[in-house]
């Protein structure tokens, strides 16, 4: 394998996604398109209160309805299904797929109906009578930490899912010994200390395709097939097998077309286990499709972390110390990765900066809300937001240009690989290059002049700047309980076409295009001759899945490795056919020949055909051309970038409007810049969305007030100016493509950039911070407050 990054010819080209025609023409197959003879439908009765003891569940009327196959209470399900497994190392209260004694959030399943069709199933749900004894509800994590007014899980007296965990300078690797001298000294020496409580509020992921599952147990074969809208069918298979008592050889998981996930489809949910276990129990194929209303409460939420941030700095802008006390509101239960997500916020507390002393602590708290888990960025946008807001506050306090302040604190390019105090090893980076690119592309100084001119006209215009660095390409295996590798198999078919498989099961990443681009270059054949298969554990032998921006940096590398293996074998067949040495074989333009003798070259198909009818069989070779590879990365990758924006707030209404946004992203070498830009566009939209329009709000009774698109806003195209995108290229040494990952990047820099701009716009009103989201009334009150 070459140690320096290689960039062959289709790699790097702006090729349109091969997936898109079928997706936009309605010709794709999603879970809800799967229909099996005799299939019955599942619907869940869900708790409409946030906390209560179940006194009784009367399913009699529902069970008696025509067309209802069966109705199950939590106790019935508990007899068939162990509590839900999690993949984090923290202690966790038992979590039943269907509540048995107590419901702990609005939307928690309390009974299951199986019926002939979805309509009957829904009617039967209405016929189930549940009586609750209401319990006190807690929605404020800082109150919940005191154990008041209620304890959600008996064994966790102060509702602490994860008690105070320290990390950073002076903290031993096991977290058990803590030496405060360095961090205390940093703050003692500081000219300036900035302290701010910040809220990174809760979001609803809202993939365009809701969740869904079809489970089909075939007793004659003792095989269970599970179709699910999931990001990781192999993890699904592993856990479904464990929970149903079947071997992994008896479970086939299929992720058909998946209409987005944003991290919310990593988790394996109660509905998936229930469908699987009931299909086995009833020996019937079963389908459950999530309503959008269910999706708001039954699919994991994202973010919801409070940070108390303190920054110590010298007057020249050099940051000496950073403290970050994190309180994560994880909702009512631990899901698969819930408890791990805020640890990523701790891990990325350095952001882009060389900070001599850092101390973070993390507390995770149960509340009566929908559980949280990964959401695009998963812990890193939170870290970026807290640090980048604090850096802007410091710049403002020091009356220093925000770009200049950051410049003075960057980790210098000479220091990479850079081991942070938080346990990360940043692979490669040149942060000043990205900053300079953004400052130049946006004309930062020109924007300042423009802002000041508009301000003189009375307009409330602000400029925002944010850096980001994120951790992508997850693994390695030491960092993921599932294993952190990825698997691929590349098969040259008899006709010279290529079928390849990847375990990085895409849900919008475009792997069918990018991986084919790589193979086309590797073999010198047209991309049209290559098909990438994914999402079916019977086709894709092994895999982990798509999350943590790992598709290319881990999955893509595995494809290339498998390709290299099969290419070496193919060269041996070609050498035999051409009576040459395998080292002299070249693959070019769909032909395989001997170096320097192009006339003798055989077609790709001819060599392929020979490998499958090898007469004579070359000595030492087995017939066929199919090889697989596992790629285990040695480290994560750490892409980075800079976002600059200009925003105006309507002085009369408080409405914010984004006027300009420039984003510079450095994801290393790019396989397909068009797809990369698409990923960045989506990420920016979600990052801006969090700052400006999206917020999951609960009332004191634990009712989700934003439980539909009537009240929960998603950003629209009309909310945005044209994004101006630029790239710098700092390849990673971690993989041979030098590619870092980009799926989540957009969400990191955009959010603090917007809030920084809003605070700048309101700087004349005596404020130094405003919590997201930028609700017009909130901004109007700041403006009014200053008038009074």
């Amino acid at each position, binding site marked *: 394998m070459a140690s320096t990054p290689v960039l062959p010819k289709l790699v790097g080209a702006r090729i349109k996604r091969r997936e898109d025609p079928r997706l936009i023409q309605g010709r794709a197959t999603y879970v809800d398109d799967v229909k099996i003879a005799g299939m019955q439908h599942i619907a869940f009765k869900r708790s409409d209160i946030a906390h209560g003891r179940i006194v009784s569940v009367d399913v009699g009327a529902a069970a008696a309805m025509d067309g209802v196959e069966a109705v199950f209470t939590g106790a019935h399900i508990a007899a068939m299904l162990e509590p839900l497994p999690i993949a984090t190392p923290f202690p966790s209260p038992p979590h039943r797929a269907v509540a048995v004694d107590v419901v702990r959030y609005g939307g928690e399943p309390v009974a299951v109906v199986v019926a002939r069709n979805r309509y009957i199933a829904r009617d039967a749900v209405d016929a189930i009578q549940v009586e609750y004894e209401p319990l006190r509800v807690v929605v404020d994590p800082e109150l919940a930490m005191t154990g008041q007014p209620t304890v959600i899980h008996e064994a966790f007296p102060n509702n602490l899912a994860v008690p105070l965990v320290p990390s950073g300078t002076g903290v031993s690797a096991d977290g058990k010994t803590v030496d405060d001298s360095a961090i205390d000294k940093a703050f003692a020496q500081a000219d300036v200390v900035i302290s701010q409580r910040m809220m990174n509020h809760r979001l609803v992921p809202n993939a365009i395709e809701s969740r869904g599952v079809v489970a089909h147990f075939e007793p004659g074969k003792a095989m269970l097939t599970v179709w699910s809208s999931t990001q990781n069918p192999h993890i699904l298979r592993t856990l479904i097998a464990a929970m149903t008592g079947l071997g992994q050889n008896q479970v086939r998981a299929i992720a058909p077309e998946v209409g987005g996930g944003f991290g919310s489809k990593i988790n394996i949910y109660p509905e998936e286990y229930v469908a699987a276990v009931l299909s086995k129990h009833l020996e019937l194929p079963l389908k459950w499709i999530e309503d959008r*209303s269910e999706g708001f409460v039954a699919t994991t939420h994202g973010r919801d972390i409070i940070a108390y941030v303190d920054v110590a700095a010298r007057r020249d802008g050099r940051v000496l110390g950073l403290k970050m006390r994190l309180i994560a509101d994880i909702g009512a239960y631990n899901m698969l990765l819930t408890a791990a997500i805020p640890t990523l916020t701790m891990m990325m507390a350095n952001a882009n900066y060389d900070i001599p002393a850092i101390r973070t602590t993390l507390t995770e708290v149960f509340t009566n809300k929908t559980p949280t888990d990964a959401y695009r960025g998963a812990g890193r946008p939170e870290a970026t937001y807290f640090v980048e807001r604090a850096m802007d506050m410091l710049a403002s306090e020091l009356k220093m240009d925000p770009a200049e302040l950051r410049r003075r604190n960057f980790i210098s390019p000479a220091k990479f690989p850079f081991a942070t105090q938080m346990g990360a090893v940043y692979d490669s980076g040149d942060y000043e290059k990205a900053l300079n690119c953004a400052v130049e592309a946006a004309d930062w100084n020109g924007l300042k002049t423009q802002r000041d001119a508009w301000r003189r006209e009375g307009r409330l215009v602000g400029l925002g700047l944010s850096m980001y660095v994120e951790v992508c390409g997850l693994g390695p295996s030491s960092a993921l309980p599932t294993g952190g590798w990825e698997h691929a198999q590349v098969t040259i078919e008899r006709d010279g076409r290529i079928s390849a498989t990847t375990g990085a099961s895409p849900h919008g990443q475009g792997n069918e295009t990018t991986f084919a681009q790589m193979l086309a270059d590797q073999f010198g054949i047209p991309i049209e001759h290559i098909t990438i298969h994914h999402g079916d554990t019977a086709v894709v032998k092994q895999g982990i899945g798509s999350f943590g921006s790992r598709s290319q940096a881990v999955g893509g590398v595995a494809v290339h490795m498998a390709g290299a293996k099969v290419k070496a074998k193919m060269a041996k067949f070609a050498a035999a056919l051409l009576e040459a040495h395998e080292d002299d074989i070249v693959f070019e333009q769909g032909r395989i020949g001997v170096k320097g003798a192009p006339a003798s070259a055989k077609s790709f198909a001819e060599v392929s055909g020979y490998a499958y009818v090898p007469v004579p069989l070359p000595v030492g070779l087995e017939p066929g051309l199919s090889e697989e590879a596992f790629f285990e990365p040695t480290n994560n990758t750490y892409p980075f970038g800079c976002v600059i924006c200009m925003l105006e707030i309507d002085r009369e209404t408080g409405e914010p409007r984004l006027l300009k946004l420039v984003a510079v992203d450095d994801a290393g070498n790019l396989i397909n810049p068009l797809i990369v830009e698409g990923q960045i566009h989506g990420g920016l939209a979600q990052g801006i969305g969090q700052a400006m329009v999206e917020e999951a709000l609960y009332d004191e009774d634990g009712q989700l007030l934003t439980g539909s698109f009537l009240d929960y806003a998603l950003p*629209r195209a009309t909310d945005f100016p044209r994004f101006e995108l630029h790239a710098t290229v700092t390849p990673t040494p971690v993989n041979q493509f030098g590619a870092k990952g980009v799926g989540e990047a957009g969400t990191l820099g955009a959010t603090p950039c917007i809030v920084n701009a809003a605070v700048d716009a309101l700087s004349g009103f005596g404020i130094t911070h405003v919590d997201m989201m930028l609700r*017009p009334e909130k901004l109007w009150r700041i403006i009014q407050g200053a008038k009074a």
Partner: protein
Amino acid sequence: MIPAAFEYVRATSLDDAVAKLKAAGSGAKLIAGGHSLVPLMKLRLSEPRVLIDVGRIPDLVGIRERDGKIVIGAATVHSDVAASPLLQERCPVVAEAAGMIGDPQVRNRGTVGGSVAHADPSADMPAVLIALNAEIHVKGPGGWRVVMAHDFFQDLFTVNMAPDEIIAAIQFTPAKVSAYAKLFQRASHYAIVGVAAALEVKGGTIVSARIGLTGATSYARRLTAVERALADRPLSKDTIAAAAELAAEGLEGINSDIHASVDYRRAMVPVITRRALQGALARA
């Protein structure tokens, strides 16, 4: 998001619809675009027994001019209203407001009559009809009835119509000097405060003005104090600014929700009123 069971019938004419509605009795609902009703049914907040589809009755669709007035069929979709050259030219407030409703999907399916009959307190069209002093033409078993817009909207989701009546058309005298402005909530794009203004101007003087307000209170209403402050005054920025200041005076029953408090809504009423009037001024 699965509605309860219902019957579905399609009406072929207005009279057929009236007959079917009468025959179906209580528990029947009319449906055209369905963009207010269907979400309620999916949430099972509304469980009609029978749906009578009036969306495909030819006479109920279209925008035409008749005797100096403009008539919009009740089943005309918002996107057709927004794109109507007749309305854009002769009565821009209607096209403007229709173009701000919801999103393209809602505008392509939702109808004027449906919006008016549903009377959502945040809907845009009620304010417009009030500003235009529009007639709402209603047919029932007893024949035709004409209700003026300002008498039509009575309370939250409550209108001056019997359960067996159907809106057939909206009719109004076009007002060239007219505009709609709204502050909308980001999720639904419904109005937090929406104001429609229609002015009659002669020789630089405002002869009369009608102002319709939506979003702020439980139902759409006139802002008569503003109207009086505009009448017989020169059409100018100053007149408008002074009149708009009166917009929230005496306003009671102001809505409050997670998107906007009473205080904020009250403060926005004069702001949006002024913006609507400025929009109208630009068309004088």
